[in-house]
């Protein structure tokens, strides 16, 4: 088992190294003068870290991001579970999220700005629009597809409807709900950056646009790189939470 874990880690590291090497190589060809090499980008990352611009930018970006993701997670899972449990709720709520998922966000942003201004609310809304549909739809699907026989088992051993939901349906649906959550969080990150680029340049969006404007491409890519790293770390934490809280059976074989 230990061997498995170490080899999984080794493969992940290998995959990352290959990507960085390819990046470095593409930067050296060069693909475009606006595309820095990996090493230049790391240099840029170092510079924006020590001059404090990253440190100033992140709280600004994280506020709508965390708020939006938290709202999407809580509301999205609740609505999704309700949809999965009841056809009536599905008929009522499902179309909203299907439309939301396919709506062109860029076209919606001017409307949001008109309605809510350029402040935090609009940005949180953008994050939610990006993150929520996939969380809702996955949760609904997962709940709907709970194996009938374990639900019957719960009933036959005298479980109340609430016990059946909390002790059987939710644990059974947890893997797919969490898969939706991971997709939703990734989409939320995109939403947060998009809102900063399209509404008002603040936070990381500001670092990106500013450095693009003054042609400091290494720093611009460094900012993008940093947000990707943050997203990966965040997703990893979610996976850890899932395995510890809900699926102890998958912990070893994962």
């Amino acid at each position: 088992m230990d061997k498995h874990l170490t080899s999984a880690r080794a493969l992940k590291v290998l995959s990352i190294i290959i990507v960085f090497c390819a990046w470095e190589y593409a930067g050296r060809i060069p693909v475009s003068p606006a595309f820095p090499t990996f090493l230049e980008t790391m240099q840029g990352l170092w510079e924006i870290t020590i001059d404090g611009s990253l440190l100033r930018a992140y709280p600004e970006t994280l506020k709508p991001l965390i708020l939006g993701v938290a709202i999407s997670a809580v509301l999205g899972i609740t609505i999704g579970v309700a949809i999965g449990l009841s056809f009536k709720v599905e008929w009522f709520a499902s179309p909203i999220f299907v439309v939301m998922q396919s709506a062109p966000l860029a076209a919606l942003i001017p409307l949001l700005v008109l309605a809510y201004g350029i402040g935090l609310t609009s940005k949180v809304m953008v994050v939610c629009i990006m993150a929520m549909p996939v969380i809702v739809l996955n949760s609904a699907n997962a709940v709907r597809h709970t194996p009938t026989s374990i639900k019957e088992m719960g009933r036959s051993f005298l479980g109340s409807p609430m016990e059946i939901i909390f002790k059987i349906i939710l644990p059974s649906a947890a893997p797919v709900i969490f898969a939706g959550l991971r997709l939703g969080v990734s989409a939320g990150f995109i939403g947060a950056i998009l809102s900063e680029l399209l509404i008002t340049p603040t936070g990381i969006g500001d670092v990106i646009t500013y450095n693009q404007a003054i042609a400091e491409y290494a720093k611009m890519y460094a900012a993008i790189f940093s947000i990707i790293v943050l997203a990966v770390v965040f997703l990893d934490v979610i996976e850890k939470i899932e395995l510890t809280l809900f699926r102890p059976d998958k912990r070893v074989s994962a």
Partner: protein
Amino acid sequence: MTSQGNTALKTTQDAPQSDIAVSVRNVSKIYGGAIHALNDMTLDFPRGQLTSLLGPSGCGKTTLLKIIGGLLDQTSGEILVNGKPVDGPGPDRAFVFQDFALMPWATVIRNVAFGLELRGIAKSEREAVAEKYIAAVGLSGFEKQYPHELSGGMRQRVGLARALSVNADVLLLDEPFSAVDEQTRRKFQEDLLALVEHEKKTFIFVTHSIEEAVYVSDQIALLLARPSRVSEIIKPDIDRSISPDALRRDPVYLDTVERIWSSLRSYVE
């Protein structure tokens, strides 16, 4: 150490104890207004005995078992358990599912104790009871394993231990041994006989296998399809004091198997 747990669980048996534990009276089931799964079925299950439901695929065995278990509503007719009409699942009946119906995220001991957990029994108490039945089905040492780490036969033993640990009067088993190999199956059948002997419970047992039915049953209800009805009640009069191997060569055993065969064949033709 577990006797205390068991008395706490004793199901209320205020009704006078007749010889019939479960009585099926004129029960019909029509699915979706069109499919007649059961048609005016009447059948009694004697207390403390094992009755098999034997019949071709689709003749309504699972349907009947689920109606007795309270998992499904009949279209008409009545089911009495200990003289009281069935209205949903109750503490007097426990189900063993064909596909085991174990929770993959729960350990063996939590699965076995789950029926008691749903009844609000304290953790230490229910685990003591579960422990006892895990040992009874021969799974000691596997308490902390997860279902995916067990073989099919072991998983069904978990399902059986779960049903036993709630101490219901009536055990409903839906083809519990259909997913295991022949060798394991024989072992299970012998274990089942021992259980019927020791547990003093009423077993209702669905099977496809004539040999299995004859081997384990006190009474066999032969069901026929379309419309589903009880065609015959057979009581294999087998001397169980002889060894399992001798029993399978016993003339009475072989005759009964042959008789059921010809009975079923005449209906198929």
